[in-house]
Structures are given as structure tokens and as C-alpha cells.
């Protein structure tokens, strides 16, 4: 479950966020981690919705709403 400072990725508009935790099955979490989405990593939301488009570790990823709900993130100031 998201902590008070962490919110599901799907709730955020385009912009930079920091990954906090995952509420997903291990295989999905492993896949995301191997693609550069891991706790502490800064990622950019390019488009919200389903699918959500993000940029992580230099690549553009498309993730379904189900996955976006299970990634808990914290917002980062726009300048970061």
C-alpha cells in the first residue's frame, strides 16, 4: 500500500517522479526493475492514462493502467 508520501503512478500528470515502492507480483516488479524502474530511480511520465508512457533509464516504456497503479511514486519538483 502507498505510504502517505507515495501515490500510484497512474494518479500523476506528465512530469518527473521518483519511484518509491511496488505493489505488484514479483515477475512484474523484476521486469520493471530490469528495464530501469526501481526504487529511488527518477522517471519521467510522458503521458498519463492507459497505457501510461514513461521514460526510464533513457528508454520510453508503455505500461498498462494495472501496472501504473502498482508503482508507487513521489512527485519531484519540475526543475529536477
Amino acid at each position, binding site marked *: 500500500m502507498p505510504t502517505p508520501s507515495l501515490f500510484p503512478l497512474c494518479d500523476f500528470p506528465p512530469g518527473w517522479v521518483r519511484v518509491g515502492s511496488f505493489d505488484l507480483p514479483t*515477475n512484474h516488479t523484476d*521486469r520493471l526493475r*530490469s*528495464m530501469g524502474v526501481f*526504487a529511488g530511480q527518477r522517471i519521467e511520465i510522458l*503521458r498519463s492514462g492507459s*497505457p501510461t508512457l514513461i521514460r526510464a*533509464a533513457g528508454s520510453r*516504456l508503455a505500461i498498462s493502467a494495472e*501496472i501504473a497503479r502498482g508503482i508507487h511514486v513521489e512527485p519531484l519538483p519540475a526543475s529536477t
Partner: protein
Amino acid sequence: MNLPIIQPSDSPSLFVPRRSPTIALVGNPNVGKTSLFNRLTSALSKTSNFAGTTIEHREGTCDLSQLELPADQPQSLTVIDLPGTYTLEGSSFEERVTAQYLHGERDPADVPAADAILLVVDATNLQRSLFIAQQVLDLGKPTVVAVNQIDVADKSGLEIDVAAMSKRLGCPVVAISARTGLGLDTLEHRLLEASEPGAAIAPSTGCSSGCNSCPYAAGHHWAADLAGVATKQRFVTTPAWVESMDHWLTHPIVGAAAFFAAMLMLFGMVFWLATLPMELLEWSFATVSLFVESLLPEGDFQSLIADGVISGVGGVLVFLPQIIILFFVLTLLEDSGYLARAVVVVDRWMQRVGLPGQAFVPLLTAHACAIPAIMSTRVISDRRDRLVSILVIPLMTCSARLPVYTMIAALLFPDSPLSAALLFSAAYFLGMIAAFTMALVFKMSILPGKPSPLILELPAYRRPSVSNAARHALDKGWGFLRDAGTTILLISLVIWALSTYPKATPEFLQQQTATELRQNPDLTSDSQEDLERLQSQIKQEHSALGRIGKTVQPVFEPLGFDWKVTVGVMASFAAREVVVSTLSILYGLGDDVDDDQEIHSLTSRLRSAQRADGSKVFDTATSVSLLVFFVLAMQCLPTQVVTRKETGSWRWAFFQLGYMTILAYAMAFLARQGILALGLS
């Protein structure tokens, strides 16, 4: 994972000099690994699965003769192209099998063990593609890193310092372009050196040793740091058009329209562009068959060669243009980066029927032919999703069903083209509904689990390589011929034997001809042609296949099939369209039914065919029952063979045959009984 560094003395088998050292090609998806494989290996490659799995690898030979090496040096390299993977420590089956191979845990008799590793990374996205580098280097095997797409990076203003990379990694790093061939000579030299006994092994990256909760974080930080050191232009801004293209191509409405346009093009090319070469192949085989018939004396051997071998091979080869065209266009779409966007668009629709977005293209392709459709399910990453797709693909109406639909439409609606068109549409619709329903059933029963939710990298847009697509398509075509052709030929010969033996004696033939002419006043023997048709019918009835048909007929009685239709169903076990020519023989029209006029003659005969009690054989109920049976039944041996190959087991091929036959039988029975109950027949 903290792996020990393997020293040469620890692993003697790894360093035994080989005439043709083996190089394992490793890297992320979309880094140009396959293009590099095609560049390095000029001739057609061998595609096979790791034993006991459906995980594919390709094996090719890299000719080194242009390097003019001394005679005591290997003159070639064996290159193994492994599946694209983001990690060697992931939980997917494909990742585990790849890691097992690289760790030397697979049987060398299945696929030769690697003497060295060629890691391909993408110059335009070093950070991402270097993540796997630390895992590969920590395997403790001689490794060469190829920085691919160096030309594209250069145009984007990126400068890659390969010397700095090599120093940090402790292994050779070569800048290449698989597309243009730049740097390949240097790469081949480095590979040769790396595969020599006692070749240097890069030190452990050490980045996984200090990891506690998430080994991925350390790996990504290591990769980001290395990419930062090696890349002169640290931040590459994505061009505005890329953002815009992605926005529209993944848009629910505009993206869907673009997807349908792309699929229309793909489907049109597979369906229409293949028509001419398919007709040419059919004509060629018919000509060769006639030529052989004229060369050989009349008899069993002539029939075996002309009707068994040539027809068997021809029946397989006729699918080849569709397979080659499909894979050529699919590879172009994939290389361009579009296919990933298309998957994003259709994923939400396909999830509703329990399948991932990647299943849509194979299902659509099945409308042309189930064989290339099943082969193209390799784009589906999840094993269960892929298996479900393979199982339901043959339910989609393919082009081979069209002659059967034409015959039944003409039977039911001889004077109403509109009604015939509606019947065609209903048959297509029934196939689609059945496919999606069975997919749901399988996902809720034998292959449970939700479809994998979408996590997909959107690769960079790039100009696809026509030569790469052609090479890939030819590889697929060759693989189909090699793996499917032999089995199909064998079973074609069995069906030929069953429909030829035991042979009717001339006395029996004469006696039966006289009996048939006496019992059926409609039949004539006015011309030699009429007599031959009648005798062909008697021979068919006398053959093992005819006898089996008569024995099995009671099973099909509830569907309204008489023994002739039953023989037609059985004879078309190998190819469903054969039912038309078989019925034409059994109903005394000859076996060359290929135009509208002849179909019309056949349907006239079928319409007037009567049972012993004087009732029509092909009343509405039986005609609809026959149509439903052919919409849903497997009746295609090449598809069965390809299912076996793609699933790695005859078990799934038999299951597919079994469930489709039961489904076809049950639905045909229900259709017939429904029509009879409503008094519509």
C-alpha cells in the same frame, strides 16, 4: 548474484581449441542483435529450440576467409543468436534458459557451448543496454562488446568513447554499424582473439556484490555511470516529432485507425500479393506432375510420384509465398519501431478476451493462413498466452476454407449472391467468436492466469533494412520447408496409400461399373471421360479410405453426412479444401474442380443427391451442418505439424485436433438439430 571468476585452468573445456569457435550473441531486444547476426553469417541460418523448450535460438556460420588468416587459425566462427533479454537474472522462462546456456548448464549436444560472448549494446541508448553488461561480464567468460548503431549515434550528435569503455570494462569494445557493415572486420578479429584458448577475461564488475535489497539498482547505477563516462553528449533530447508520433500512434482512436491501415496493408500483401506466386507454384507442380506422368509408365509408381510425392510437396510449397511475405512485412514493421506502438493500441481490446496485445497480429494473419500465423506467435512473450493463441488460431477462417464455403453457399443459395455473401460473413464471424470464446475458456481452465499486463519498451523509430527483412523472411521460409515439409510429405504419402490400396481388380471394376449404371439412371458412360469418372469413384470407394469412411459413417450420421461426405471429411484431414475434389469424384464429376462453372456443376449434382429413402442428402440442415463443421474443424495437417514444432510437443497438436474436432462435431450437430426443430430444412 556474485559469480566466481572462471580462470582458464578452472574450465579446460571452455578453452579447448575448436576448428570453428562458438560465439554467443547476447543483448537487449531492439539493439540490432539480429541485424548483426545476419551481417556476420551470410548463408541461411538454422533456427531451433533449446531442447525441451520453445525458446528459440539461431545458429549460423561466420566466414572469416576475407581476413586471410594463417592456416592454423580457425577460418570460421559459429554464431549462436540468443533471445533478446534485459537481464540474466529475471524470472521469465526465456531469461532463465538464456542464463542457463551462458552458465554452461545446457547440454552441449543440443547447442554448442560458447567459447566467447559477443554482447551487443545500442550506441543511442548505452545506459539501458549496458545494464545487462555487468551480468554478462560477471559470467567470467571472454567477452567482446559491440557498440551498434554508431552511425545513428553520430548523426544524433553522440560521441561514444570506445577506448574509455574498454578500459572500464576490461574487454575489447568495438564500434560498429550492423546496418552498414562498419567495423565488422575489426569485430571479427576481436572475436577470434576472444575465442582463443587462454583469452583474457574481464574482471568482475563488482557492482552486484554490495547489493542488499535490489541488485537491479546497483546494476543500473553502474550502467548509468559507465554510459556517462563513455558518452560525450550526456543528454540527448528526444526530437519533438518522436513525442508527437508516439502520442498519435498510441492514441485510442487515431492509433487504432493507423493500426487498421497497417494491418490492411499487411493482410492485403499476404492475401493478394501471394496469389500470383501461389498460382505459379500450383501451375509448376501440376506441370511437373504431368511431365512425370508422361515419362513414367502408367502404374503405382507413377501414381506414387505424381499424386503422392509431387502433390504432397506441392501442397506444402504453395504456402511458402504467404509465409515469406508475412515475415518480410512484419520484420519491416518491427524494425521501424511501429509494431511496438501497434501492440500498445490493441492491448486493451485483447485483454478482454484474456490475450495480450501481441496476439492480435497472429490472429488477424490467420485469415490468410494459420501456418504463418502460428509461426508469428513468437512475438508473444508469455508462454501460456502464446500457447492459447496457437490453440485458437486455426479457428479463424483461412483461405483454404474458401472453396468449401463457396461450394456450400452455392448449394444453399444458388440464385442469391447477397444471401451467399451473408453466409460467408456468418462463417467468418463464427470462426472469430469461436476463437475468442475458446481463448477465454482455456484461460479459465487448462492455462489459467490473467494475460500479462503491458510492460513494453517503445524502441526508437528507424529506417528498416530491406535486406535484413528479406533474410529473416527467407530464414523463416526455409525453416518451414525443412521442419514441416518432411512430416507433411510422409503423411501425404500415407493418405495416398490409403486412398489407392487395396486396388480394385479389372473384373471387380467392370462388374461394379455395370451395377452402378444399372442402379443409377442419372449416370452415363457415353464418353470415355464419363466412364473414367465413374471408375475413379468406384476405386475410391474400394480403397482403404473409402472402407474406413463407410465404417465410420454412423458416427457422422447425426450430422446428416452419408458415407460419401464422410469419406470427403476423412480425405480432407490433411487439407480441408480436398473435400471439394473428393466429393466431386464421389459424385461423379472428376477431380478438377477449380472454377465457378465446375463448382456450379458439382453443386447441381450434390443438390440432386439422394439417400436410400429418397430424401435429399444436402438439405438445408445437412448443408449448414457441413459448413459449421468445416468452419470449426482442424482439417489441416500442415497446421498440426507447425503446432507441434512451435509448442515443442505432439501433445498440444493432438489436443488442438481433439478439441476442434469435438467442437466442430457438437456445433454442427446443434446447428442441424436446431434447423430441423425449427422446420427450416
